[in-house]
């Protein structure tokens, strides 16, 4: 993707991710997050959660991936601002959608607004700033 090709309001392709225990545990370990609620179902249930759930660093990683999948290797991530909502539990699916919120051609800055929804509602909403 080149800056000149990006228009305000352009819609990013959706991306659906299966939320598996493997993804939740794999993401937690890749981010070196060994809190038990991200790998131990009994421990998560003892704290009132129905199952293990995705950690924030994995959510951040998936958000970054969603936007650069679209923007390509020439885009540099400038900021990822997310608001956290419904947890991602195993067996769910999360679908990312997004659109271009602003383009500043002079500074080469693009802001994408996005949401990642699962069957409980918004897991994550926020904006990602890209520099070209």
């Amino acid at each position, binding site marked *: 993707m080149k800056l000149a090709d990006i228009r305000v309001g352009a819609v990013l392709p959706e991306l659906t*991710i299966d939320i598996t225990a493997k993804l939740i545990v794999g993401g937690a370990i*890749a*981010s*070196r997050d060994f809190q038990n609620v991200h790998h131990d179902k009994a421990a998560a249930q003892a704290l009132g959660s129905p199952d293990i759930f995705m950690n924030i660093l*994995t959510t*951040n990683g998936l958000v*970054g*991936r969603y936007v650069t999948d679209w923007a390509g290797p020439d885009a540099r991530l400038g900021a990822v601002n997310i608001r*956290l909502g419904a947890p991602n539990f195993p067996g769910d699916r999360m679908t990312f959608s997004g659109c271009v919120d602003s383009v500043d051609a002079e500074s080469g800055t693009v802001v994408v607004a996005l949401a990642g929804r699962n069957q409980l509602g918004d897991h994550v909403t926020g904006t990602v700033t890209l520099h070209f």
Partner: protein
Amino acid sequence: MAEDFSVYLGGEFGPFLAWDEVNAPMIRHWCEAMGDTNPIYTDPAAARAAGYNDIVAPPTMLMAWTMNGYAGKRPPGSAEGNALAVLSAMSEAGYPAVVAVNCEQEYERYLQVGDRVTYRATCESISEEKATALGTGFFVTELSTFYNQRNEVVGRQRFRVLQYRPAAQ
């Protein structure tokens, strides 16, 4: 009248170090788990074509480099202390539950293989007591500033939690 927690505002904690320098195996492992196929993270030629000297780390890995890890221990040389000590004080004062609300990361420069990350943290803000759908409590924001081995700022993270007394069911 709610307790005054403003004594916990500010302060500078750190530096907190990383167990490992930025390295290709941890980057590849992350990209595998996230399903991230951006070639600048794994292919030196693609990284050079995009203007970097070598492969770079996904910027969203920022916090991962300085996590304590399996043993839950800070790397040697790290400072003691914790910018969010206010959360334990709130818990003891009758606000035992916590939920993460926001995470805002900004990236000044991409980390390259061989970089050594450290960070310093401060308690940037504590809200007034607020009534929310979950219960009554306080929004607390920790600001962490990340540096490389040249003491250049790599990025910042604002992590906001709600520490609260759950509403009656």
